[in-house]
């Protein structure tokens, strides 16, 4: 699936919910189901700065695609990173760089998009894209 198709799928899933509580409960569920990062990658270097909770992200290239794993000590943050990883993992670096993140607004999480928001969704997106830049350079 392309990034756009996955995002569409996520928007569809979230459109079933009637209120914020259901959306958050689903996000918490996604957070709990997040495939965990290997303990060895939960290092200071892999912590995303700008989040009130700790978020670790690890990226590695498998064939020509980037695979992300992550974890957080806060469950809502974990849900958010789970959504991002579902979107961006197993995609080509260039596709990750070209992708937009408008769908976050569409699934009712716009409040998390503010750059001053303490959970740092913006920082997370930036970090994932930075990995994509780095690996794209490597591929070239």
């Amino acid at each position, binding site marked *: 699936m392309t990034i756009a198709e996955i995002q569409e799928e996520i928007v569809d899933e979230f459109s079933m919910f009637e209120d*914020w*509580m259901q959306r*958050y409960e689903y996000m918490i569920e996604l957070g709990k189901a997040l495939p965990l990062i290997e303990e060895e990658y939960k290092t200071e270097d892999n912590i995303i700065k700008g989040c009130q*909770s700790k978020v670790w992200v690890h990226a590695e290239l498998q064939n020509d695609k980037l695979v992300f794993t992550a974890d957080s*000590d*806060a*469950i*809502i*943050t974990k849900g958010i990173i789970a959504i991002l990883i579902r979107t961006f993992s197993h995609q080509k670096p260039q596709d990750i760089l070209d992708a937009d993140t408008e769908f976050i607004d569409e699934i009712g999480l716009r409040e998390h998009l503010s750059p001053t928001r303490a959970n740092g969704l913006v920082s997370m997106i930036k970090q994932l894209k930075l990995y994509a830049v780095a690996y794209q350079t490597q591929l070239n």
Partner: protein
Amino acid sequence: MIEIAFNIATIRKDFPILNRKVNGHPLIYLDNAATSQTPQQVIDVIVAYYQNYNANIHRGVHALSQEATDAYEAARVKIQEHFNIAKPHEVIFTSGTTHGINLVANGFTSLLRPGDEVLVSAMEHHSNIVPWQMLCERTGAVLRVIPMNEEGELVMEQFHNMLSNTVKLVFCNHVSNALGTVNPIKEIIDASHSAGASVLVDGAQAAPHIKADLQSLDVDFYTVSAHKICGPTGIGMLYGKEEWLKKLPPYQGGGEMIAEVTFEKTTYADLPHKFEAGTPNVCGGIAFGAALDYMNGIGFDQIVAYENELLEYATSELLKIEGLKIYGTAREKTAVISFNIKGIHPYDIGTILDKLGIAVRTGHHCAQPIMDFYQIPGTVRASFSFYNTREEVDKLVAAVRKAKDMLL
């Protein structure tokens, strides 16, 4: 008596912001330790200033300037009287507590020598740690920490043992922002003075709850921010004993703080202007005075009695939630409850509470050493003011239960 004088419904009408909704719910504002809300009476003073007599002060020959100057200086006197300060020029207007602390820390650069000791308490706000660390780096003085115990109280025995003739300065907050602990500052001041050390007390968190009598405390420096006591942001005051303010060099150069300027030499203005470079926050200063009028109109005895009742009620209701732990259980504390629920990150609880219209603070509260002490990433902090109600406490408790159900 208190019931009659303290009509919560009337008081709440003074705060227009309390009528608004957040995320579809009536706002429940429990982040008062970060900043307090502003009553209409203070908002009116701010509006009146800009509508009627906005002017630069202390130098104009025109009527507006004179009116603004008079109002600004009258506010200084209000602050002086409120804190029982001996002389109005011992009140320095600052942009807030942090500014006041930096002003003093900067001033001590030429007064400390390598090997001198500076003591800070273990429960300081970063604003009362970092300026002293920088001072120590500049001077070669040594920063030492007065430890605290599990309840969030300073270990006074150790403090007394740390005092010696090499200790030159002691810094402590009157009330801890993260825990609400009221520190025994009179004991700290007296003991420090006996050892020959001077004391700066950060009064930012105390000011909304305690009317400090600075002459009887005999403190050397005391700092406050207006926005914690129903005033606007960007204005505060530094109290310094006259002898100290004369001894310390100016902090910033510029207009207002000079007596005479030539390219060879500048002589400085008298107190308080020596420390008030540039055009001050005139409106803020006047509104600061109005905020003190407002709080004194209600009365600090009434405020404290009511807040203590709220604190006691909220503490006992929150503790009924299984797995909830309160950090900071000092015998003497203000209406602040810092807590966590086992297995849940404070940020998650704060996010759910926000969705329910409840404003609390989460995180380390700019006091990371305290969080390190308890080995936690942060806490949820609910801080109460005299305009909060028991019903709001009930809603907080219900919301925390809801958050717990969702998150665990």
